[in-house]
């Protein structure tokens, strides 16, 4: 009998510890550990200082400008709430397009401009033929411009 209580106590203790562990994990996800930071986090100053980090979001429509040397580009990254300007010198991936997802590595300069050393294209989980995409786009324009935020994963 005594042994049984002991065992019960052990099991309850284990369950309690696991529960605490789960609590801690959930707590950690509140302030998430990230592969990249969103423009809002950057505007709020929740990003690394001194060291380089990644910014993720969508390339703002109409923001892409190429400079004369043909290599340096400027664009803006948005999460539909805030916008951060980015400059980058180098070759862009093929899938880099306005209105599409992007992840860039770099650091903020003194004017709050993000200077990227490396740009990756991040695309969404939708796959369809171009015609379907076209149709979808038209349908969206006629409705309201509720842009799907590409930067955060569904």
């Amino acid at each position: 009998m005594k042994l049984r209580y002991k065992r019960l106590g052990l099991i309850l203790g284990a369950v309690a510890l696991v529960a605490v562990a789960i609590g801690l994990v959930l707590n950690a996800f509140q302030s998430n550990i990230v592969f990249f930071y969103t423009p809002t986090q950057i505007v709020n100053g929740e990003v690394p200082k001194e060291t380089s980090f990644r910014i993720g979001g969508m390339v703002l429509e109409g923001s892409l400008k190429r400079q004369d040397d043909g290599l340096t580009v400027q664009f803006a990254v948005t999460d539909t709430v805030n916008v951060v300007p980015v400059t980058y010198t180098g070759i862009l991936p093929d899938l880099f397009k306005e209105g599409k997802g992007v992840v860039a590595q770099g650091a903020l300069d003194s004017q709050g401009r993000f200077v990227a050393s490396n740009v990756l294209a991040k695309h969404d989980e939708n796959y369809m033929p171009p015609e379907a995409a076209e149709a979808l786009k038209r349908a969206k324009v006629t409705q309201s411009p509720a842009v799907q935020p590409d930067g955060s994963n569904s």
Partner: protein
Amino acid sequence: MMAIFFAVLQRDLRLAWRKPAEAATGVMFFIIVASLFPLAVNPDPVVLRGFAPGVLWVSVLLACLLSLPRVFALDYVDGALEQIMIAPQPLSLIVLAKVAAHWLTATLPIVLLSPLLGMLYGLDSHGLIVLAGSLLLGTPTLSLLGGIGAALTLGARGGGVLLSVLVLPLYIPVLIFGAGAVVASQAGLGVQAHFSLLGACFLLSFVLAPWAIAAALKIVME
């Protein structure tokens, strides 16, 4: 029931105490590995500071790994483990004591020394505190998970290297969260999330590892 825990703990601590050179060599290994990197890469202070969390955490992890075989291998070879296994005592409690002794003798000294190395790498005081804290919270998990590997590789050939291959994948999350905490603190960000995850890892392994180690020992002793 706790009597046996303390009996085993006392014995293992005493054994370690008789050979202080062993614990000292663990510390020396840590120091040497941590100072190999600046030799092998560009020793620019800014670059070094960027390295520091990664290199220090990886060095601690390797030092811990190298000392792991000691947890059970000696007892296995000389037959003491056999006697422990047929004792009328809960095996998981005994292995917990052995793992605790391993942590106290092999890993804790390294953790206590880490701020010194961190200083050499140019970490600021906040970074040093976070480094020591993350190690203090993370290394018990390493000892617990490592105990599983140490038990499983008893009597298997390939010894230390096989152990590393088994255990290192399990160490990766601890490494990411631990080093991540220091990186975050250097970047001026909060470290609470990292510490929560380290704590969760510890609690989970504290619950599961003694059971897994005991099961592993029963299997390999057959």
